[in-house]
């Protein structure tokens, strides 16, 4: 069953067609990866799904309901959570308080501060940042900031989690931990839609992959299928000479 359906989405900025007629089906319970060269429209698609941008054309259906016109906070309440590629922690708040925001406001039914604190503590434990809970966010390393991004998104208790390059900048060990933790999130019943450039992780994680180029979908299928697609190889080789897609990893 489709949890998220994108129908012919379009978004232009001035003369630049960032997303040009994108259709996508994300099934409940799967890990779906969007890959593609820089500027392919992946992050714009995330902004359309989470409601930060309004599409020029097309429809977004989440869990059978048309949410194309819904506000970002309404989408959060209906079960869409996301991280940001450039980590955006709330300064003036501790790590735990950052996560508490999600617990407090990610649901329609309000939570007390005590309940939110307790639940935020368990999200911190789940994402491996419980030892940092009382720390100020300034001075955290990249890996911990990425974990905080995921923790905040999880604290809204999403049914669909959008992960925007959470592996970028991680060491191989940290990336392996991240892969394991994303699997655990999926196994707990959350559908995952992710953007990433780290192909080894995408291959390990994704049930299905869509490849975007110039705002359009040029291939969709298993990682192996898209990795051997001539159009995909051309898009990547045309963009980056070292050819980032290597099925061997």
């Amino acid at each position, binding site marked *: 069953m489709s949890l998220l359906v994108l129908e012919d989405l379009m978004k232009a900025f001035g003369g630049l067609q960032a997303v040009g007629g994108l259709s996508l089906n994300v099934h409940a319970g799967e890990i779906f990866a969007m890959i593609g060269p820089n500027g392919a429209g992946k992050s714009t698609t995330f902004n359309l799904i*989470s*409601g*930060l941008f309004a599409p020029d054309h097309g429809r977004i259906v989440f869990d059978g309901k048309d949410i194309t016109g819904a*506000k*970002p*906070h309404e*989408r*959060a*309440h209906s079960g*869409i*959570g*996301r991280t*940001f590629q450039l980590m*955006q922690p*709330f*300064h*003036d*708040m501790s790590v735990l*308080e950052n996560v*508490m*925001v*999600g617990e*407090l*406001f*990610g*649901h329609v039914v*309000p*939570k007390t*501060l005590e309940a*939110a604190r307790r639940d935020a503590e368990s999200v911190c434990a789940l994402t491996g940042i419980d030892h940092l809970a009382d720390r100020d966010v300034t001075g955290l390393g990249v890996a911990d900031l990425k974990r905080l991004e995921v923790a*905040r*998104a999880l*604290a*809204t208790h999403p049914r669909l989690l959008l992960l925007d390059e959470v592996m970028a900048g991680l060491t191989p060990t940290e990336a392996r931990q991240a892969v394991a933790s994303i699997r655990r999130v999926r196994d707990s019943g959350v559908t995952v839609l992710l953007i990433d450039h780290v192909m080894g992780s995408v291959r390990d994680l994704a049930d299905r992959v869509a490849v975007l180029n110039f705002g359009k979908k040029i291939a969709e299928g298993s990682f192996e299928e898209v990795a051997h697609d001539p159009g995909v190889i051309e898009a990547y080789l045309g963009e980056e000479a070292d050819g980032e897609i290597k099925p061997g990893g």
Partner: protein
Amino acid sequence: MAGAALLAAAAALPFWLNRTQPYFLQLALNVLIVAVLALSWDLLARTGQLSLAHAAFFGLGAYTSALLTTRAGVPVVAGIVLGGLMATAVAAALGVLTLRLRGIYFAIATLAFSETLRVITKQLRFTGGSAGLVTPPLLPANLPAQYLVILGILLLAALTSELVNRSRWHFAFTAIRTNEEVAAVMGIDVVRFKVLAFAISAFFAGLTGAFYAHVFLFINPFEAYSLAISVGALVAPIFGGLYTTIGPLLGAVALRIGEETLRAALGSGFLIIYGLILAAVILYMPRGLLGLWTAAAARRHAGERGVTAPVSGNGQA
């Protein structure tokens, strides 16, 4: 505890000052007016909305109450409350219009709004034009009682501020101030909280303006909508410590008393020194007076736990 003692002292103040030093009671009343405006400004600033329009809400409150009491025969107390409510209603409408503006653009829009109100008030015959309005008194010739009224308003503002800072609103305000987009995708209704903050903030500014009108018994557009009021409302929280209840109060007390002392000591040139002190505090103490206190407390705390702090050489206690 300390707060209750302070409040008791503040409430007792007029009863001995009034007999011995009425000038100081007048000064204390002015300090309280600035303190309410400072808290009101800070409440709005917690959502990242930096207003240059506090004079607008102060003036709206003052004129609403002045007009209702002189032209419609409304009792003074009711006029003051309605003055606060008028400011609230206008702020909610303005808040919706300025939602998309951030930082300096928001500040400029609010300044324009305030100046517009002043020009309109100056031009209309209905509002008394540039000659202003003479207003009926609140608690006539009873300075101690007037002082207690503004103390009560300040208490209400301080309670509101504490309630906000101890509730989920604190999380919403802080998140919106840091990053509206992240706040929104985490489920915060940004529009609602920004407009709410604007409305609450304006209520206290309007209430204070209306109180002012019936204590000083005369208002005109130049004073009621003066930039000095807007600037005073924002300098005190910055000086004392932003986003707290104590900071704006501390800032208002320190600034007003400092200003009076400098004026008495230096005469007409005092504003130069005053300005230099302000600039130094803003440059070198980004967390204001309250920041000095918390830094000292943190050092003491570190010392108690036996952590070797690089600042002190001898004290181990």
